[in-house]
């Protein structure tokens, strides 16, 4: 099992190392100013120097993202189930849901601050908003493709609507839902950071979004890169956790797992 994980991690690790090496060579050759493109070592140094500030900040952002993601997962599955159950509702509400997704988060963020106030609540809300649609769409899609033969079986057994949803449609849609959850996991960190840009508390308990903003203002591009890398790592970790969950749920019976 450990061997398999390592083997799976090897190709992307090689790609990352190759990219960082290419970046380093490019910087050495072209010698851009530090404020434009810092060298990988400069970024690493910035991270090491500020890690006491950066790591807790990243954890705060990851926490907001995870909370937003959890809300979006529940809301997305429920909303997707409701839309799957009623053709009328689906025709009426699905186009609206897609429209909501089109509105750029940056434009909604100030409104969120007015509704949720300053602090982590805004970043949780913005993370949730950005994550809900992939889950909703995946749930809807998965449920609507329920095998009609199985649906008929449930009909023959006179199952209640709730039984049908819980014992047939939800497990059936699970592979699709997991795909949606993975997409949402990555997006949730972005959503949290955008929310932080507009509504987070700076100071002792800054999240990563604030650090990025103030590093940009102070022309500390190396710190910006380090913060962004850390945020990406948080997103990746969340994605990994969700993938692991998906694997655990699906591995025994679905080809997509493993």
């Amino acid at each position: 099992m450990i061997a398999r994980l390592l083997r799976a991690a090897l190709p992307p690790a090689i790609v990352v190392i190759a990219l960082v090496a290419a970046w380093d060579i490019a910087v050495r050759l072209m010698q851009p100013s530090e404020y434009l493109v810092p060298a990988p070592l400069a970024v690493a140094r910035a991270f090491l120097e500020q890690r006491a500030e950066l790591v807790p900040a990243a954890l705060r952002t990851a926490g907001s993202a995870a909370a937003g993601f959890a809300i979006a997962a529940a809301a997305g599955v429920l909303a997707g189930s409701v839309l799957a159950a009623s053709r009328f509702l689906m025709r009426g509400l699905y186009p609206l849901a897609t429209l909501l997704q089109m509105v750029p988060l940056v434009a909604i963020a100030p409104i969120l601050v007015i509704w949720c106030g300053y602090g982590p609540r805004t970043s949780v809300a913005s993370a949730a908003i950005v994550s809900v649609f992939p889950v909703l769409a995946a749930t809807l899609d998965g449920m609507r493709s329920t095998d009609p033969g199985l649906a008929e079986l449930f009909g023959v057994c006179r199952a209640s609507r709730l039984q049908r949803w819980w014992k047939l449609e939800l497990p059936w849609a699970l592979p699709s839902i997991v795909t949606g959850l993975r997409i949402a996991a990555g997006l949730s960190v972005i959503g949290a950071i955008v929310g932080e840009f507009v509504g987070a508390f700076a100071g002792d308990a800054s999240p990563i979004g604030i650090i990025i903003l103030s590093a940009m203002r102070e022309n500390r591009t190396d710190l910006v890169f380090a913060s962004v890398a850390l945020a990406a790592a948080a997103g990746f970790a969340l994605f990994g956790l969700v993938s692991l969950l998906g694997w655990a749920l699906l591995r025994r019976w679905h080809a997509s797992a493993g």
Partner: protein
Amino acid sequence: MGRTFADGTRALAGASLMVPAGAITALVGPSGCGKTTLLRMMGGLDAPTSGAVRFAGGARPRAAFAFQEPRLLPWRSVVSNVALPLELAGVPRGERRARAERILDRVQLAGAGRKLPGQLSGGMRMRASIARALVTEPELLLLDEPFGALDEITRQALDDLLLALWGEFGMTVVVVTHSIVEAAYLGRQVVVMAPAPGRVVGCIKPGFASRTPALRATPEFAASTASLLQMLAQSMVREKGAA
């Protein structure tokens, strides 16, 4: 108990049929003859647009279906799948597991309870599907080409299994099949149907004294299948003539 039909949907025109209680009836015919529609109407999955399904004793009996695809939930174990109808009806866990295990034993899947459907062969999955149909102890068992996707050897084995189960439980069985051999082997009454429009063209009652695997080799059996074949062929010719 006796059962009476009259007339049907556009897939069926003027099909009229009596199904004897406690016996196996086979519906045989080419594609499009409406045999599946007829079966589904018997079980309440469809309703006739003209005419009606009537049951002796008035009330509709408890029916169970087995389809050509096993229709097992891939994420549940075999025993959990078999217990599903009981679970949906609210039977407590301990009791439904026990009943499921017993049925699995009857269909010779005793060791396979914990496996997932994906780990079983086609024949085993079909047996699990039948087990699920039987777990509720239905009065009416409806099978729609249950062994159509399987090879000949497996099919014969499963036919014998079906006979054995019927022998034990004694419910009314209606089997829809493409196979004349299977129809003759299983059915106390074999109903021949023809398409366009779907209708009943004839009915024979092969009166074999006993049904054992050896029966298939006997000349009487061959005679039965021959007459069924003839009936079918005639109906096709008539149809061609009419067209």
